[in-house]
């Protein structure tokens, strides 16, 4: 016997596991329910009150907080539900700055999409609250904040940092980091909060240099700032980088650290090498590829002939690709004729490779990053993991934090 039960949604019968979250179930069968505070990676909040549905058990409820139980019947849309959702939405946007014309995220904003769905006009220029621009990487505009809790929860539940909170209460409530300003806080700039924000309340500082994000192109690639290999979405406007987001894929599942999200401008500085350089009388001068490569070929050939292959060394790079490293070692071995090829792995994990080969026969990490989340005990030693591998640290924090709230079943 499986634990599948029937649930009737708008007259149609479905089968699903008992205890399935109603909202997630409805989403999975492509029934459109408006949501704002809900986020698949976060615990439920039930704050926005948009995902209202009717059940035969409790009449009007928020779908996000409801588990599917036996003989449940759900109505996802009728006149009253539509009226209530719309009314709540109108209340939500009433005091907000919804001046989409001046907003960078015009066309991308979740609130805007909901407004379209509800056919509610957004045009208010409210600037009651002061913006917090003190963070080096992001800006918080309380006037655009829908108080959905996503940023606060993302910082706490995904990143395990808990830097954010609300301040004050009622309509005066807004998100705060530290004591009154982002700069005073423990925020380390990972930007998880920006990524989950449904509006432009939290926005990357870099985006403020642009009028509109749309149109843009999005490309996925692998981050270079440590060994985790986070998948990142690079947003491009023409040739300019708008921003970087964590791609919701293995191994990082959407998370990035401050370097990956905000550091890649460091690759495109004006002083990038643009042509080959040749040193003459202690000074570099620009040279053509032909000239430079011919010079190297000549010198290496000369030294090889004069002193032998083993007088030449190649240092490869852990920052280059597999293909490049392969080509480079092939060059040193096949062309130069020596095994004098090494790279900085020597300086970090040579002992891992030698040690683990002696013990196990293979020198690599034996298991997968995501498995850490399910370990019962984790021994960390000699790894300042929150700084050197911040995204792996989030997996570990999750595994441990899980322990702090013992379930009582």
């Amino acid at each position, binding site marked *: 016997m499986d634990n599948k039960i029937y649930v009737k949604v708008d007259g149609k019968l479905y089968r699903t596991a008992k205890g399935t979250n109603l909202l997630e179930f409805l989403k999975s069968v492509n029934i459109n329910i408006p949501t704002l505070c809900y986020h698949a990676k976060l615990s439920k909040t039930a704050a926005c009150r948009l995902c209202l549905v009717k059940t035969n058990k409790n009449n009007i409820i928020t779908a996000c907080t409801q588990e599917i139980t036996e003989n449940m019947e759900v109505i996802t849309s009728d006149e009253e539900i539509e009226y209530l959702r719309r009314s709540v939405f109108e209340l939500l946007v009433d005091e907000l700055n919804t001046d989409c014309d001046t907003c960078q995220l015009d066309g991308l904003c979740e609130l805007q999409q909901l407004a379209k769905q509800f056919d509610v006009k957004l045009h208010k220029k409210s600037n009651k609250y002061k913006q917090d621009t003190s963070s080096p990487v992001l800006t918080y505009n309380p006037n655009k904040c829908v108080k959905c809790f996503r940023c606060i929860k993302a910082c706490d539940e995904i990143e395990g940092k808990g830097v954010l*909170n*609300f301040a004050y209460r009622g309509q005066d409530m807004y998100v705060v980091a*530290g*004591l009154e300003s982002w700069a005073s806080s423990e925020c380390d700039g990972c930007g998880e909060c920006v990524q989950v924000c449904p509006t432009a309340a939290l926005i990357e500082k870099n985006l403020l240099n642009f009028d509109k994000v749309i149109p843009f192109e999005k490309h996925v690639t692998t981050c270079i700032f440590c060994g985790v290999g986070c998948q990142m979405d690079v947003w491009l406007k023409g040739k300019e980088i708008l921003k970087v987001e964590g791609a919701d894929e293995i191994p990082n599942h959407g998370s990035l650290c401050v370097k990956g999200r905000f550091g890649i401008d460091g690759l495109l500085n004006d002083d990038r090498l643009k042509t080959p350089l040749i040193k003459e009388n202690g000074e570099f001068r620009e040279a053509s590829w032909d000239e430079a490569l011919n010079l190297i070929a000549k010198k290496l050939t000369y030294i090889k002939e004069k002193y032998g292959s083993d007088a030449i060394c190649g240092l490869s790079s852990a920052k280059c690709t597999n293909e490049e490293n392969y080509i480079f070692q092939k060059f040193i071995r096949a062309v130069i004729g020596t095994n004098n090829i090494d790279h900085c792995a020597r300086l970090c994990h040579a002992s891992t490779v030698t040690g683990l080969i002696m013990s196990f026969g293979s020198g690599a990490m034996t298991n997968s990053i995501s498995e850490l989340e399910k370990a019962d005990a984790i021994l960390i030693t000699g790894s300042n993991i929150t700084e050197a591998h911040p995204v792996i640290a989030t997996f570990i924090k999750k595994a441990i934090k899980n322990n702090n709230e013992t379930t009582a079943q």
Partner: protein
Amino acid sequence: MDIENILKKYSKDKSYLLEIMHDVEKSKENKNLDLNDLKVISKYLDINLSAAYGTATFYSMFSLKPQAKYVIMVCSSTVCHIKKSYDILLFLKSLLNCDDDNLSKDGLFAVSEVGCLGLCDISPSMMINNQVYGDLDENKIKQIVGELRNGSNGA
């Protein structure tokens, strides 16, 4: 009692945040928590600053702004409203020469409104620091304020 001594009374259990802030505020001359207090408390309990800031600003009994030696809370809730608490409030403010921040001119009193004090049987009522006062009228208020000014009342 200074903040260090207050902290000593409590273990590092995070749930003592409110208790500690309560005691610290009461111990301060101006009956307020300042940002430095929040820093010290956060560090002691090993919580983030925003947890202290967010919590301190949630509860209306905490004040981040300096108040005064005597914090007068006039009940403005239903019963007292019926019993004309608003007149009491206005009278108090004029008696004490309160400024826009509701601080008395002599800096001795801070006046505020508060939800039901549960003194409905002796409404209208107010509370000054830990002391409650009921069945208020203008004469009684004058007398109470006078006593506090003379320091002959232990509130």
